[in-house]
């Protein structure tokens, strides 16, 4: 059984009487342990697809399944709980909480889950160490570089040990060195810890490292490569 599955996904945004189709019937299945990317130009629907797969938004038509649960049938609260337990998100703009330290940011999802404080700290520190930034644990985001902030964001996703990490343009705001370092870290975590990653990206550096590329254009899958 696929970890994550989309069936005939359609998403149409409506506003001011105008309908804008973002996805026009996408079918996709992602197995556990995959290191895959959805690639395509801006406006192709990559981010929308990630949002629907992660239960952040609801499709206009179609089905989303995550570990056997039909996501698009869940209530707002149920989807929130599902995201909390099973999905890790990494965003292009890092989206760290500015008043929390790197350690607290990394532990934030665990805090939402109600994990005991001691365990939160241990797991967050473990994630920060795996990403090579344990020494920055007590710094707030405004005292971290872009690359360091994105590592904290990845640590936040990983500390919760989700079923899948959905990362939307995780390297877009990073320079070559930091971007590459982050890609290598995520690749290592995928290989060593078996964490499933699905990226939305058009960054060739990242595309060069993934095992599978799903090409998206105008809301449709137009091709797929497996390596």
């Amino acid at each position, binding site marked *: 059984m696929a970890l994550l599955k989309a069936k005939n996904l359609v998403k149409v945004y409506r506003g001011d009487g105008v309908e804008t189709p973002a996805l026009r019937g996408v079918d996709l299945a992602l197995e556990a342990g995959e290191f895959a990317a959805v690639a395509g130009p801006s406006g192709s629907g990559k981010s929308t697809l990630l949002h629907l797969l992660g239960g*952040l*938004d609801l499709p206009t038509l179609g089905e989303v399944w995550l570990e056997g649960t039909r996501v698009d049938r869940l209530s707002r609260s149920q989807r929130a709980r599902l*995201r909390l337990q099973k999905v890790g998100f990494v965003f292009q703009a890092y989206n760290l909480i500015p008043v929390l330290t790197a350690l607290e940011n990394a532990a934030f999802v665990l805090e939402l889950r109600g994990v005991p404080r001691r365990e939160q700290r241990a797991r967050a520190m473990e994630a920060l160490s795996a990403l090579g930034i344990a020494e920055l644990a007590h710094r707030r985001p405004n005292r971290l570089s872009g690359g360091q902030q994105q590592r904290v964001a990845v640590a936040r996703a990983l500390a919760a040990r989700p079923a899948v990490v959905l990362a939307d343009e995780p390297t877009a705001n990073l320079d070559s060195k930091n971007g590459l370092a982050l890609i290598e870290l995520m690749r290592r975590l995928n290989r060593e810890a078996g964490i499933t990653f699905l990226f939305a990206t058009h960054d060739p550096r990242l595309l060069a490292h993934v095992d599978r590329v799903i090409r998206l254009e105008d809301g449709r899958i137009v091709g797929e490569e497996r390596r």
Partner: protein
Amino acid sequence: MIALAWRNLWRAPGRSLTTAGVVALATYVGLLTFVLTWALLNGIFQTATERTGHLVVRVAGYEQAALEARYFPQAVEARVRGRVKNAVVEGVLSHPALVAGGRRGLGAVVFGFEPGGRNDRVLVQKHLVAGQGLRPGGAVMGRALARRAGLAPGDAAYLFAPGALGMGSGLLPVLGLVDLPESRLEANFVATDLATAQALFAPGLLERVEVTLPWVRRYAEAERIRALQEALAQALGSGYQVLRWDQAYRGMGTLLVAYRRWLYLFVLLFFVLAALMVLNAVYLSFYERIRELGVIAALGATPAQLGRLVWTEATLLSALGAAAGTLLGLATAWRLARGFPMIAAEEYAQFGIPKVLYGELHAGDLGFTLLVAFLSSWLAALLPAYLAMRLEPVEAMRHAGD
């Protein structure tokens, strides 16, 4: 979550401090209002019970009764004394009379009570400004009455009360003058000893028996009088009525009860204003962080957790303000409990307010103030918390609020 809410408050420290300051001010003003009100109530209670005693025994239906039917045998005083413990019991005879001096005759009320008794102490000795205190066979007058009648200590005042049960007239030496806080009382006041008053107006009779309870000093304790009132009324039978101080001093008693009710409304109003400030601060904070709240929602926070985050911020803001206001309020209450002078004391003395008042703060009032402080803040946080609960992560993350 609490740590996050607390730190969120300090993203806009000026705004948070201003809002907490308003909550502190409302708490402080609320507590101060209670402290000052209790001081006033106690002051008025003290004056009123000085004038009437805590309980007054009169003939049943005395208000409608003819003058001579208002009197009752002096033996009733002993019956009352036998019924109440730890109390000062004093029989008083008062009667309207014409007082004639060197210049003119004026209407007055002549009070007869024992020299050295409670009434002598609180009406004569406490306010004596000229001449000597009360002695058998003499009279002490209100200074205003004496001035208008053309009388001074050493003069003889002629008292005339046609239709009285006693002699109805007599010539008494003016021993001294009193300056009473209540001008109206001073303008009519003549005091003599009980035996002289009885000889003039009603031999062997009293007009009332006053019961003063030294163990009831504060307005808040006034309810303790009720049981004694009922027991005494039962013991004396239907021919007599036992009035509490607020029934005897009727206008003031009603006013105090009404004032207490309004007081709670005033305090509520302070917090309505504070709640608007909290709403403003929490809503602005929410609006500026819609994007961040969207991220938190995306990470898996349930609507309830988002609402709780906003609600916790409002609670912490209020707690900060309420704590500061309470500390200031307690310090002020402690200082005012040691006594403070009444503003425009001479004018307010007409209404029975003493020149020095003593503040008082009750645990119930502190609890009420804090409860209202938190309830108003929670109500103010309802709208932003509700909006946070309704956030859609994707839309919220597109928001450019901050």
